[in-house]
């Protein structure tokens, strides 16, 4: 990939250094922070404890939460799709669908599996889909949040355009809070590894309180959200 162009950097940064009454800094070491309360949240909490917090906080965010075993996952999702009126469905291109035994569930004419070869047609399909289904890469107990590491296959549109999204949450993805995820990404950067170009923390359906502070659920993103927590294989 060609490097982008940077304009006016030196004069801009020299001015900052002048105002700070010193020379430009060539190297700065990040200090060890004196205050790090983030690591104390749900410290030493059991998996069940984290699950309970995740469920409680998700429900607070207007999310319907289901818990199931892998053997029941396909049936559970099918029920949810019927309940929420899923005549058309879009799902990400993700090997986990087959790993969790969901291939046959989505092998139907009403489901569109994201495929970059289909180009813009993918977006049209997502735009008209009732339900989008995808896996959560990380899930946050503190706030009932699911996380997507988006790329060309784990498409952003699947969690964004349909009226309802269903996030499949493998239990092992539940961590106390954002801290554990950002730490992991920081380590990737530190080790010179690539990071996802879109890391999206999503907590329930879209909402707004812009009119007289009255909360309305469902604005430009999904109107309904469902999490299906599945015990790991």
């Amino acid at each position, binding site marked *: *990939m060609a*490097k*982008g*162009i*940077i*304009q*006016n*950097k030196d*004069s*801009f940064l*020299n*001015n900052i*250094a002048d*105002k*700070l*009454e010193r020379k*430009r*800094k*060539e190297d*700065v070491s*990040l*200090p060890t*922070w004196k*205050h790090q*309360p*983030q690591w104390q*949240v749900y410290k030493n909490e059991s998996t069940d404890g984290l699950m309970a917090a995740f469920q409680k*906080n998700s429900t607070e965010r207007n999310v319907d939460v289901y818990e199931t075993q892998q053997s029941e996952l396909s049936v559970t999702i099918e029920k949810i799709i019927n309940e929420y009126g899923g005549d058309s469905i879009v799902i990400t291109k993700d090997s986990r669908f087959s790993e969790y035994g969901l291939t046959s569930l989505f092998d139907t004419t009403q489901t569109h599996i994201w495929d*970059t070869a289909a180009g*813009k047609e993918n*977006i049209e399909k997502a735009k008209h889909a009732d339900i989008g289904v995808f896996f959560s890469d990380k899930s*946050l107990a*503190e706030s009932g949040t699911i996380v997507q590491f988006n790329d*060309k296959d784990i498409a*952003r*549109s699947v969690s*964004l355009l349909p009226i309802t999204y269903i996030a499949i949450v493998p239990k092992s993805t539940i961590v106390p*809070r954002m801290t554990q995820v*950002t730490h992991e990404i*920081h380590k990737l950067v530190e080790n010179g590894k690539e*990071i996802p*170009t*879109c*890391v*999206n923390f999503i*907590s329930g*359906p*879209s*909402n*707004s309180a*812009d*009119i*007289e*502070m*009255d909360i*309305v659920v*469902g*604005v*430009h*993103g999904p109107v309904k959200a469902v999490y299906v927590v599945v015990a790991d294989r």
Partner: protein
Amino acid sequence: MPMKIGEKQFFDRIEDALQDDFMRHAMASAQDRLRGKKLAATEGDKTIGDWEEWRSAGEEIRRHTLENLDFYLDQLSENFAERGGHVYFAETAEDANRYIQDVARKKNAKHVTKSKSMVTEEIGLNEALEEIGCHVHETDLAEYILQLDDKDRPSHIVVPSLHKNKEQIRDTFKTKVGYMGTEEPRELTAFARSQLRDVFMEADIGITGCNFAIAESGSLSLATNEGNLNMVTTFPKTQITVMGMERLVPTWEEMDVLINLLSRSAVGQKITTYVTNLTPGVEEDCVDAPKEFHLVILDAGRSRALGTEFQSALHCIRCAACVNVCPVYRHIGGHAYGSIYQGPIGAVLSPILGGYEEYGELPFASSLCAACTEACPVKIPLHEQLIRHRENYVKEKGRVKASEKAAMKAFGIGASTPSLFQIAVKGAPIFMKPFIQDGSISKIPGPMKPWTEIRKFPSPGKDNFRTWFKEHQKGRQ
């Protein structure tokens, strides 16, 4: 439209605000709700431990970042460019607008979608793009409402349309875009969704502000609730992000702490519905992401605060927690400040960015109760900075009015001359007699006019302290 709101003088703006009963009621009610939600999500949420620890963590991170701002901005720009993004360092609002206009021209852009961004309000970006024939679509619900209503201006950093009620919004929708529904927020919101759905898909460029840029990877972290930011940064081929030069963190780990402080302090949420972190370098065959990224890093007066007593004002994370506790904002609302940055932080920042000539009176719009300082999640000593501004405004700039100077001089002479002082004290009840009604003064000309327009002034007592004290001493003997 740039940072400035309206052409009226400060006192006239306040007068207008005090006459607007709905607005004052809306501000008070919004403040109460926002403050209540914030308290529940901060001191009230025991899951996160001691909120003071979080504030200290935020302060520590912001101080370190600003002290090393040149280094981290260098790192940010190099990492952003390394992944294929373009970076433009803009010294002024005009520089930023010119660069963005150039990008829009090169892309032959006709439609631009925008998520909520105070910094683009500050530089008047919409007008700059309209000048070259672009149609700019505000997509945040509040900004959409304001744009439709003849480009009304924001009255709150986080909820810009706070001064409008649902009936006014319904009428605006009816007049401007043929809305036929009721004033129910749910219905109004659904209408906005339907109006903007195709606009999102067809836009040539998506423009965002920036909550925090992450220096170590050249990433941009954006906290929102409505999903519009995700639409703006998913479907157009080109993304432009404008950030104030201070809005960055060293690594992803500091982003975590600051997003937590922001979400909880601004809207009382444990986390906003979306925290979207975008990094250039999207795969070529990716269907739903921009392929071209531009980052505009703006000074526009911010560097004037560096190395001064106001440096920590740049620590601000734009949560508006100070606005939501300010007794002055409660009564005069956002527009009276005459700046898109209102409340205590507005009164500190606006003079830094726009100068004392335009905004020097704002630091006087404060009771110095220090509620703002206590509410700030990154511990900016806001009330102390307001005092410093006042000192600078009066001393360094010599902006004391001639009448005020004369009055102070007269007082100096009177107070240092016992005979004159006695005459003044004894004469006060006589001089003030024409203005006294029912034992108090409700209208008086001259320097006391602004006071008596709002509240009554007590009439001078018949006895003064010296006379009373003499009598008191006699009584004791």
